[in-house]
């Protein structure tokens, strides 16, 4: 094969790959809109398409139950599940890149255990002292707990250069947090234990527009910064030596990656509680169907994939046994755990 035909074949392959990326992105976007529509229509109360259209686009019947159901219950929930699903997938991708390990998810590193520990402390203390605790206090507690563990992992990363050891250290931090939580729970009231358990299974129920607004700014900023880091992350994927040779500041990149990932995880945990498997399953699936791990392509696609995955899981969680609502983690685990097993089985393959 001469040079010209080689170039031509390379161009054809590249064109095919680009077409595939575009097609997958379009399919995910279509799934996103389809799920958004299904979510708007689905619920305990039947609302006709005409009513939905009138409420959404003409703002008809502001005093009616249908209007409030759509605007105050269904829409904030759809937006938040999409935002946080995307955030979880992105967070998982960053951690997997950082640790070079496909099962390094946001919750494997004990970030959610840290959040749960601080939420347990705050919930029990506030209820004992003041009999009440507001949701914003619990959100801040979860955020603080997540960032506390992140800070500790960052500290460890300065000492532990080998990623597998750092990953194990992160898991150990998670165990310490779990042990502290168990210690607190030993002296807690039954009602504290039950509610802490409910919280730790995650839910998009009870969300409001204020949650959506806050999550939107945090997740958007983190997404944008991650996207801007696509090139250095891509170089890092090729190995530290290569990244350094092309001028990437490895130390700064590591800090940026772990901070962004933690902020995203902390945001999810704060607003919806810990949600398992999304951070591992979605990046794996997306990379598999894209047949590439290039950050510039993977980042937007997996964000959309995470949003679609969480919207679907939330739809199942709230409608499968209505009016009883399942915890989101129950559903994400059903779909996500088999994917993790698949990763284990194919661990010898290249990612």
């Amino acid at each position, binding site marked *: 094969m001469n040079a010209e035909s080689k170039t031509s074949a390379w161009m054809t392959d590249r064109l095919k790959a680009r077409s595939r990326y575009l097609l997958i992105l379009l399919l995910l976007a279509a799934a996103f809109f389809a799920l958004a529509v299904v979510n708007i229509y689905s*619920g*305990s*109360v039947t609302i006709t398409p005409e009513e939905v259209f009138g409420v959404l686009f003409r703002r008809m019947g502001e005093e009616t*139950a249908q209007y*409030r*159901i759509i605007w*105050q*219950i*269904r829409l904030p929930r759809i937006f938040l599940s999409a935002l946080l699903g995307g955030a979880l997938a992105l967070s998982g991708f960053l951690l997997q890149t950082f640790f070079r390990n496909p099962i390094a998810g946001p919750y494997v590193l004990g970030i959610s255990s840290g959040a749960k*520990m*601080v939420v347990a*402390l705050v*919930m*029990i*203390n506030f*209820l*004992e*002292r003041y*009999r*009440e*605790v*507001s*949701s914003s*206090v*619990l959100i801040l507690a979860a955020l603080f707990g997540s960032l*506390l563990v992140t*800070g*500790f992992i960052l*500290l460890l990363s*300065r*000492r532990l250069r080998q990623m597998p050891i750092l990953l194990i250290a992160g898991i150990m931090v998670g165990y*310490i*947090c779990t042990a*502290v939580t168990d*210690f*607190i729970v030993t*002296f*807690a*009231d*039954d*009602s*504290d234990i*039950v*509610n*802490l358990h*409910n919280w730790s299974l995650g*839910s998009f*129920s*009870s*969300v*409001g527009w204020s949650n959506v607004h806050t999550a939107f700014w945090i997740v958007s900023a983190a997404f944008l910064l991650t996207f801007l880091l696509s090139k250095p992350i891509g170089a890092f994927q090729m190995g530290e030596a290569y990244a350094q040779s092309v001028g990437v500041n490895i130390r700064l990149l590591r800090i940026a990656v772990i901070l962004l990932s933690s902020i995203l995880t902390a945001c999810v945990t704060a607003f919806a509680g810990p949600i398992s498997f999304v951070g591992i399953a979605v990046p794996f699936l997306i990379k598999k169907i894209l047949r590439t791990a290039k950050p510039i392509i993977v980042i937007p696609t997996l964000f959309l994939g995470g949003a679609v995955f969480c919207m679907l899981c939330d739809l199942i969680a709230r409608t499968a046994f*209505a*009016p*009883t*609502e399942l915890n989101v983690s129950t559903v994400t685990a059903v779909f996500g755990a088999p994917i993790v097993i698949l990763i284990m089985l194919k661990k010898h393959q290249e990612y």
Partner: protein
Amino acid sequence: MRIKFAALILAFLTVLLAGCSAAEAGTVEAGTAESESSGAAVPVPVESGETAADPEAPAVDGLVYVSTMKLDYAECFDVYFYEGGYAVVEISDMRSYLIVPEGAEVPAGAEGRFIVLQRPLKNIYLAATAAMCQFDALDTLSSIRFSGLEADGWYLENAARAMEEGDILYAGKYSAPDYELILSEGCGLAVESTMILHSPKVQEKLEELGIPVWIDLSSYEPEPLGRTEWIKAYAVLFGKEETAEEIFSVQKQYAAELEGFVNTEKTVAFFYINSNGAVVTKKSGDYIPKMIEMAGGRYIFSDLGDSETASSSVTMDMETFYASARDADFLIYNASIDEPLESVDGLLAKNELFADFKAVREGHVWCTTKYLYQASDVNGEIVHDIHLMLTSDDGTEVQPTFLYKLY
């Protein structure tokens, strides 16, 4: 560098440990607050109808204070009456409700200060299990449209029937209510137990949807009859204060009948075995031990558990329980969480050591019915039942309602 790193690790561990000790310290302080509130001076009761000024009565613009509800035992709520049929219900220091009569105007400026509840209250979402019996006793079950408990969870006959007939619908548990269903039928009030305090997002969401939230603090009442007296708070929501007074006086009567009774000095253990095989029993300061004392018995643990914490139960290993309760005259198996026992063999199957207990050898093993914990309106009768159990060897033929003997 190493020193710096070690210092940072130390700081992290210090934060964790400080957190733990704060948790314990918090528990103690909170408990103190509770015990203080328990022992706090209850506003001097003014007979309903009297017009003596009550400094505790909140001033409401445009309303003239009339009287304060007389409460015998309850410490977690107060009721103030105003001219025109208005009333203010203050639940602890947490929430104030202004009850507005049907067709009457809401006083100017009340919306921000009070949670306004205008009669008639309809399509209530009831997630506080212990409150259902109060609605039933007041004959206001028809005001409830949604339940936080499924039909098979109700041991209260009328509530279970209403659910089976579709008059009351299951609308999700307290921590995940079906907002759509509740909103679609114009829910006028959500009645929640103290469990909602652990799920503030739910409470805030209900309020965001315009559904006022009533928090039942009856489980915080230190006296058994204080729980029962909450019927008076519910009565105000429907203008049925007189009915509530009559119902409550019957319960008071049950307790009053035992006032002159000399304690039998028979010892009673109240417990259940959890899934780990450990014994879960009540703290000495809980209302169940108090009911045992009122009924003429002695709770086996005179000083069990930290009275200053909110928890009502203590989990202990079998060895500790055996040492204390082996010689107890009566064993009552608490079937509120665990399944009710059918025979003494059922108890022995949980742990063979029970065969060595005095109560088992003498045939004094009893079990509670599931209904016990949904019957907070008849705590006087429950005290009476325990009294019947204690005197069951005296030839009494009357069978208790809330307890049954195991053979």
